[in-house]
């Protein structure tokens, strides 16, 4: 059931440990949310799962195999794609180039071209902006490009770091709608969010992280309503 897991994971920057012994699991067809105050280590945890951050101790397990020593490239090939905080658009690359770098792990040129075309089919708004530079796009368009980049490799698991941060409310709604569709299409989503209210709408499982430690976990059946959750959140 749990296809992607962190087991007793420790990591940090320099000599400072940021995440201390966290275990979480995420499954396909589900949205798993990690909440927590700023500096709680949730983004760092996500990076460790993505392979952008070394795991000091503990393990990362995907489909019952340890991927802890796999570089990001191999994890992507295995089906785990990641969108960093603020999206993954490169300001000086065109939309087209942004999508192609999203599909960097696809070595076959024809296949790459085909994937780009599929993304344009999916997001017709982007097709009109092929040549535009990343920095010339609106916030919403940038988010579209980021999702497009994410989907280039047709991953099984999507790791998202605050996908709603800095977006207009109307765009946030669209993003969560998109995530809901992806979930329904069978993708597994593991995301870090500050926007608890909207995230709860699509969450199947939640974790709360404080100072690098897991303090709360609620599986699908036990997810409380927002009010109750906020109470919990405030207490910890």
């Amino acid at each position, binding site marked *: 059931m749990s296809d992607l897991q962190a087991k007793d994971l420790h990591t940090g920057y320099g000599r400072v440990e940021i995440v201390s012994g966290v275990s979480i699991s995420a499954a396909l067809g589900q949205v798993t949310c990690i909440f927590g105050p700023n500096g709680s280590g949730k983004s760092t945890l996500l990076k460790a799962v993505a392979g952008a951050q070394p795991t000091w101790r503990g393990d990362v397990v995907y489909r019952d195999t340890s991927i802890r020593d796999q570089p990001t490239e191999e994890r992507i*090939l295995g089906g785990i794609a990641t969108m960093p905080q603020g999206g993954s658009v490169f300001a000086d690359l065109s939309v087209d180039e942004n999508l192609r770098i999203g599909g960097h792990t696809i070595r076959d040129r024809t296949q790459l071209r085909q994937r780009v075309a599929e993304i344009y089919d999916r997001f017709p708004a982007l097709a009109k902006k092929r040549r535009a530079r990343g920095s010339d796009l609106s916030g919403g368009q940038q988010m579209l490009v980021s999702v497009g980049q994410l989907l280039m490799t047709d991953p099984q698991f999507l790791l998202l770091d605050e996908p709603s941060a800095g977006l207009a409310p109307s765009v946030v709604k669209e993003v969560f709608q998109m995530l809901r569709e992806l979930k329904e299409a069978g993708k597994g989503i593991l995301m870090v969010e500050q926007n608890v209210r909207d995230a709860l709408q699509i969450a199947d499982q939640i974790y709360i992280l404080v100072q690098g430690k897991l303090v709360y976990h609620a599986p699908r059946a036990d997810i409380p309503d927002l009010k109750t959750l906020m109470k919990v959140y405030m207490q910890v």
Partner: protein
Amino acid sequence: MDLLLQTLVNGILIGGVYLIITLGFNLAFGVLGVIDFAVGEWVMLGGFTGYWLNHYLGLDPLLFLPVTFVVFVIVGALVYPMLARLLKGRQHARLLMVFVFTFGLSTLLKGGALTAWGFNQRAMDSFFSARSVELAGVYMPQIRLVAFFFGVLITVAVAWMLYRTRFGLSVRAVAQDEGKARLMGVNTNRVAALVYALYAGLTGMAGVLIGVIYTVTPQMGVQYTIFAFFIAVLAGLGYVPGVLLAALLLGLIQAFVAVYIGSAYSLLIVFLSLYLILLVAPRGILNRGRA
């Protein structure tokens, strides 16, 4: 009128020399985000490689350009891991460490060359040395024409690589945001290593050409370090197409100042113009480099 045209040509051809030194340097800066203070020493060692090969084999030094390229690509690939250790290490002030490392490397290479080969100036001649092409009273030194076209050729080749290949796209991505690029599955360490090797190879070849045009001495490096840095800033740090323009501009400023204002003022005017340009466009003349 003749002198005006001649000065224009002189300036453009001086710019060609600068172009070949700065191209790789700017590329490496873009990807690694650090200034390699040893750039002038790679030029110097490239010059000596050409000189010794020419000395012992007697063939035209320009024929050794490919060999020099290969040798310095290997040297670059060997040096890069040391740089990477510092860049990716856990120390504070990593950029300062890299600065100290390249500065030390530069001193070491210069000192080593001085000890090994002495302080003498060495000259090597190509088939194109001491020949010129005359066109309507304007003289174009053949060796400088060769260097200029070589510079343009490698600029086009590097630009093609950057804008038309998968590897080039990943290089540009790493230069802009290494973290994002890594999340896209780009092996950023491998990209940086290859770019550094490429930079060393290009700079080594620049050394051969400079050695043929001027002379080779263990101390020749310093001024090229300064010029490379200068042009890279003017071009927009990390922005390769700007290099062509910045190199030509610098060559032209030098030539015109020397003839029409006074050579003694050339450095002053060069730095003044750099200052003014950066005041208006802090990201370089085309406003596309790193701020």
